[in-house]
């Protein structure tokens, strides 16, 4: 019985999420208004996340470099360091963990912003005017997420690998030539395409799932807080599950 109720609740959420998405993907009422909202979101989701993305990627690239250097004993070639840094950053760290971090930063922000608008009746005010509140509030965020998250991920890859090279050379565990060789060895463009494909999906998930939780917040400030926690948790869980599915699909 309990399992049944739980299943029903899941179905309810999935259905309502789909409904919200279909309401969001409507032609915006005013192109000009939409463009200015989009620019604001690109700034909020993108520009304001560059710092944290860069910081984490630099440290991650550096640590992977040192860790790999430490792990390879004498007989594994030194260029493995550059190779490992590149593969780790491009294949999983940048495309998966950066969206997870963005889910924490951007997702909670989206949910609490939309949630506050819900509980203070601002969404009702939009509806009364005849504005499609879902499309007005959510579409710019999703589009911004789709555009900007891949860009942030590329930034993260470049920064991570760059930091790895710098630390490798600076600490003397690898020469620049070795690192560069390792960076290029067995490189497939497909890996980058694979990574960016996943990233687009994650950008969509983290914006839309967070918006969903905010949009259906009910009650007061407490509930807005809860909805933003839920937004982060669910975005992360769904990103991880999707990652598994996409990895399996794309690698076959």
């Amino acid at each position: 019985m309990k399992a049944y109720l739980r299943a029903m609740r899941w179905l309810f959420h999935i259905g309502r999420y789909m409904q919200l998405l279909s309401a969001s993907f409507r032609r915006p009422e005013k192109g000009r208004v939409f463009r200015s909202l989009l620019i604001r979101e690109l700034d909020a989701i993108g520009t304001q996340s560059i710092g944290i993305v860069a910081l984490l990627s630099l440290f991650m690239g550096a640590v992977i470099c040192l860790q790999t250097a430490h792990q390879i004993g004498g007989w594994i070639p030194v260029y493995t360091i550059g190779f490992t840094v590149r593969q780790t950053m491009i294949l999983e760290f940048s495309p998966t963990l950066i969206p997870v971090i963005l889910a924490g930063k951007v997702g909670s922000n989206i949910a609490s912003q939309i949630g506050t608008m819900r509980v203070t009746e601002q969404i009702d005010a939009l509806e009364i005017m005849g504005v499609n509140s879902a499309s007005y509030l959510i579409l710019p965020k999703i589009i911004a997420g789709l555009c900007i998250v891949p860009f942030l991920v590329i930034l993260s890859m470049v920064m991570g690998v760059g930091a790895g090279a710098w630390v490798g050379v600076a600490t003397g565990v690898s020469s620049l030539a070795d690192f560069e060789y390792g960076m290029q060895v067995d490189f497939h463009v497909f890996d980058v395409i694979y990574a960016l494909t996943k990233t687009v999906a994650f950008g969509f998930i983290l914006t839309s799932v967070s918006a969903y939780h905010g949009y259906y917040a009910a009650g007061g400030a407490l509930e807005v807080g809860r909805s933003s926690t839920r937004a982060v948790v669910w975005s992360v869980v769904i990103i991880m599950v999707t990652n598994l599915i996409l990895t399996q699909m794309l690698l076959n």
Partner: protein
Amino acid sequence: MIELHNISKSFGEHDVLKDIQASFERGKVNFVIGRSGSGKSVMTKCTVGLIEPDQGHVSYDGRNFTALSRRDRKEIRQEIGMLFQGSALFDSMTVQENVSFPLKMFSGMTDAEIDRRASECLERVELADAGSRFPAECSGGMQKRVGIARAIAMNPKYLFCDEPNSGLDPQTAIVIDQLIMEITREYNMTTVVISHDMNSVMEASDTIHFVHEGRILWRGDRGGLLAGGVPELEDFVFASELMRRIRKGGQI
């Protein structure tokens, strides 16, 4: 004329509205009065379609609003202005932008015309120089007035005000009441005012509906109000010492 036909609404077990019949006339200020929690706000939200009634329908000058699809409702929505109980101003926008917002979305005016119209509306509520403030920087009463300015920006045919002067000092409350009366006459609007302030009722009402526990127990006008007859209504109206004295015709 707005007509409510047999509107019922429950939230779970709780029957909030029970078979409401009401009609609000054009060119008049129609008051809905009743105690806190009697269902006034829910009734208004059912009328404008923010809450779907379980039963019954609402018609706007003969157009059955409840039966319309979301898209067709939009046309009527744009003829509705609404002041929410909590003002529901967009907190990311300045006062001027709040008032301009519906114009920007729907009017097809140029920017200069929009600015002029928004300033005109702000002047009407005596807020000509608050345009550049944000809602958070306004007092509760100012927010109410901005809410009214925003509601009338599009020259609505139908105006709903949920407690326009709760939380205002008596002088400002009178200014608001007068304003609502003036614009109702001037634009021949169908105005619905929700209130439990007997001062406003005596000052500004043309017709009155009394809601008690989700039913309309009485309808009439100011004159009839003092005559009494329905015990719940008498309790409501003569709850204040002032009104009791007026009834006795005695000195205040």
